[in-house]
Structures are given as C-alpha cells and as structure tokens.
C-alpha cells in the first residue's frame, strides 16, 4: 500500500478564547492521492478553512495527525502552496516583485526565481503587465498574478481557500476553469475549500461534505462524468453534464441549508 500524498488521521481541533473553548473539528479522517483534486464543502464556520491552515502548518491539531507524504506537518513547507480568498497582492510592489515573494522569503536563487516568475506570468497572460502595480489590474488578472506567486515556489500541493469568491460571477467562472486546467495540466495535488457547491463539483475528482460545527466528514462523493465520454471535462463544461445536477441535489440535501 503506497502512502497517500495527504492524510488526516482522527484530527480534532479546539479553539481557546476568553469566552471558553470551541470545538472546531472532530475526528476528521480522509486521504488524498497524488495528482487528485478534492473539494471540501461546508457552511461558513464549519472549520473548512481550518483544515487548510492545519495542512499548511500554520496551526497544530489538538488531537490526531496531519500527514504529507507520511510525515507530520509541523511548519509551512515550500512544497505546499496556499491560495487565499483575497489575492493580497502588495500594492507597493510590481506584479513581478509580488510573484517572487515566496522565493524571497524562503531564500534561494533569486535570479532563477525571477526567470520562473516571468515564465509563469507570460503563461497566465500577464507577461506585459509584469511591471504594473496591482491596482492597475482587473480582479481576474490579480487572481492569476496570485496564482503565479503561489506557483513560483513550484509546490506539489495546492490549497485553495475560496480563491474565487471575491470575483464577479463571470470572471469567477472563467478563472475557476482556467486555474482548474492549469492545476490538472501540471499534475498538482489540490484541495479546494468552498461553500459554492457547483464550483466544488465542477473542479474536483472528489467532493467531501463537512457537517456543521464541530466539523466532521459527513459524506464523500467521487465525481465522474460518464456522459461526457470518459475523459474529465473542463470545469466549465462539467456544469452542463447530467451527472452534475444529480450530485448538486445530493450535496445540497446534505448541507442542511436552512434559512433562519
């Protein structure tokens, strides 16, 4: 049996505050294989972003283990790239200077990093904007610049924390499609956290549904589109497949969305 790329083993997490103790996650267990794209859906406050912070090593679990390549995660590793909700581009830096932030903090060959960043920016259609400031770019372009910044460290794992939620609907669809394609083409292992069910289904090989707080794994759904003819359709086309609406209804039901 080979070691999975990512594994959560009976992970629990408690937050402590002056008002008392909050149980955010309870007995989380799942594994992600190399090259797999997994979406995690859940309502806000169910601890889904916390899962990514654990994987990135920003926080430590109260109980259980978080493993990457069979090793417990203790600190942020260069092999894990994190894309946050906000692009958080530094407005005092050019796009290129933003893209090399990771290597700059990690230390290392800056000339190689800059060359890598230039290639990435060109590939993402930002080549001629590399000396622009972030505020001269549109939302979609900014998010692609943020992707270049993440990719510049050449991570094998990508953590996506609702990276499209700040975009308008149309940009959101096309950027999700684009970034999904990039991740698949480069064979990265990816975890997407979102409360947008269609987005979760359209991009992933597997959808994990989290319950309300304390977050537990409520269901796991493999995503496949036999109707599209074997090969995984792009995120954009997946939305038209007949399996899509079926899965949407199932996940919607499991999320117990109540309007209060």
């Amino acid at each position, binding site marked *: 049996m080979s070691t999975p790329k990512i594994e959560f083993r009976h992970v629990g997490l408690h937050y402590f505050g002056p008002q008392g103790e909050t149980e955010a996650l309870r007995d989380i267990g799942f594994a992600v294989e190399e090259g797999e794209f997994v979406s995690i859906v859940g309502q806000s406050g169910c601890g889904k972003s916390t899962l990514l912070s654990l994987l990135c090593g920003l926080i430590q679990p109260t109980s259980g283990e978080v493993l990457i390549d069979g090793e417990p995660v203790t600190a942020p590793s260069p092999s894990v790239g994190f894309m946050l909700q906000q692009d958080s581009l*530094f407005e005092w830096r050019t796009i290129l200077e933003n893209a090399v932030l990771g290597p700059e*903090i990690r230390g290392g060959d800056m000339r190689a990093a800059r060359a890598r960043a230039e290639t990435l920016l060109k590939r993402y259609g930002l080549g001629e904007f590399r000396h622009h400031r972030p505020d001269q770019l549109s939302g979609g372009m900014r998010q692609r610049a943020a992707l270049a910044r993440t990719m510049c460290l050449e991570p094998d794992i990508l953590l996506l924390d609702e990276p499209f939620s700040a975009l308008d609907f149309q940009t959101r669809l096309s950027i999700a499609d684009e970034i999904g394609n990039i991740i698949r083409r480069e064979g990265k292992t990816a975890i997407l956290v979102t409360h947008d069910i269609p987005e979760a289904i359209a991009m992933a090989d597997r959808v994990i549904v989290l319950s309300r707080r304390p977050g537990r794994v409520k269901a796991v759904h493999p995503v496949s589109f036999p109707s599209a003819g074997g090969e995984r359709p792009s995120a954009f086309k997946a939305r038209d497949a007949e399996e899509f609406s079926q899965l949407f209804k199932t996940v919607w039901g499991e999320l117990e969305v109540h309007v209060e």
Partner: protein
Amino acid sequence: MSSNTATMTETETATDTDGMAARRPASPAYRAWLARQRRDRRMVLVTQIGLVVLFLALWELAPRMHWVNPMLTSYPSAVWAGFVELVRDGNLGFHVAVTMIEVVASFAIAMALGTAVAVALWMFPLAERVLDPFLVLMNALPKIALVPIFYIWLGPEGSIYAVAVAVAVFITILMLYTGFRQTDANKIKLARTFGAARRQVLWKVVLPGNVHTFVATLKANVGLALVGVIVGEFQASKAGLGYLIVYGSQIFRMDMVMATIVILGIISLVIYAGIQRLDTMLSRGHRG
C-alpha cells in the same frame, strides 16, 4: 475558448484605466467643466489673499483709530519695522538657526526612538501588553509639566531637547504601533504561508505597508517638536525664537513678539511643505 475571451476583455479594461480617455479630443462639455474648475480654483485663491489683506488692514487700522490699545496689539507696519530691526542687529538669523537646529534634532531623535520602540512592541506582543497602560499614561501626561524637572536635571540646553522629544515621542510610538497592528491580516497570513518568520513579516509586510502611517506621524511630529522646543526655550534659553518672544514681552516690545511669531508661522509652513513633498515622492515610488 472561453478563457481566451476572458483574457481579451480584461486586457481592454486594463488599457482603458491607463488613461485612453485623456487622448480623445475634449468635448465642449468637458472643456466647459475644466473652465469651471479653473474658475473655482482662482476664486478660492483670491478669497484667501483677500482674507489675509483684510486681516492685516484691520490689524493696522484698529490700533491707529484707537479702537484697541496699540501697546497690546502692535500693528503690521510696526511689526515689519521690528522685523527689519531684528535682521539688522544681525541676530535674527542666529536665533532662527538655534531654534531650527533644536527642532530638527529633537524631531529626528523622537522619530528614531519612537520607531524603534514601536517595532520592538510589535515584535514582542507580550511586552506591549505589559507596557500599554504606562504608554497611555505617558502620552496623556502634559509633558510641559516636566519642564522644570528637565531644567534641574539637564540644564538649559539639554532640557530644550528633552521637552521636545518627550512631547513628540509617545504619540510617535502610539501612532506607529496602531498602524502596525492594523496591517492587513491577509497579507500577514500570506507571508506566513511562505514560512515567513516574524522578523520577515515586519520587513516585507508591516513596514512597507505603513509608509502612509510614517508620513502621518512625521506631520504630527513636526508641530509637536516645534511646541516642545519653544516651551523649552521659554524656560531656559538665552537664544532662539522662544527666547525672543519671552524677551520681547518682558521689555514690552509687542512688535518684536509679533514679528517672531510670524517667523515661527513661516517656519512651520516651510517644514510642512517639505513633508508634503516627501509624501508625494514616497507615494509615487510606492504606487507607481
């Protein structure tokens, strides 16, 4: 295909914001708007000059018509004569220089010291929690009350710097630290996902993200350093503009006092303009 279309529209939007509109020939409505703007600006300037002239005229007229006692208010022409006399005696330049050196030096000391403390507080949050009430107390305390103590401890020369630094340093610490604390949490989180240590977060995110806080602190500080220096000179010195004011009032030469105050006003205006310049320069370098 769909992603290609998205790239196209975004490229167009981006060039548009670069100022395509400016290159198009101006419409009559736009030209009328520009003319209206110019007229408004002129109006404001004319009114400002008018107000100054009106003030000076009233100030000249009132004592001459004996509406007020000229011994108490002096008047512009006498102030001008007093100014000329101060220059001719050869020591006005000296007094201005003394005050300027004191202001610049204590301003620089307060800025450096305040920045160092603010950075240290940010680096060690526990220290901040310990020191917070003391800082608030020291900031609220009227530093002018310390002048006699500084005079006894440090003598006439040292006490001037001490008052000026004391007046400016606490507000520097509090303003900078508040700015540091309000740094965008997402940017800090981002740096941490790259494995940044606290020191790196400081250099890569907190300090560059707070250039505007620095400029705001500079602006507040120049005025405060000037207050501190003048108060210090009131108490202690044998030179400087504060000394001139006290001396003038003791020999009841209101023209001399008023002339010195006008000079003080001009000095603060010049310093403020300098900082404004620095601000534009920094934000240009900052934002592109």
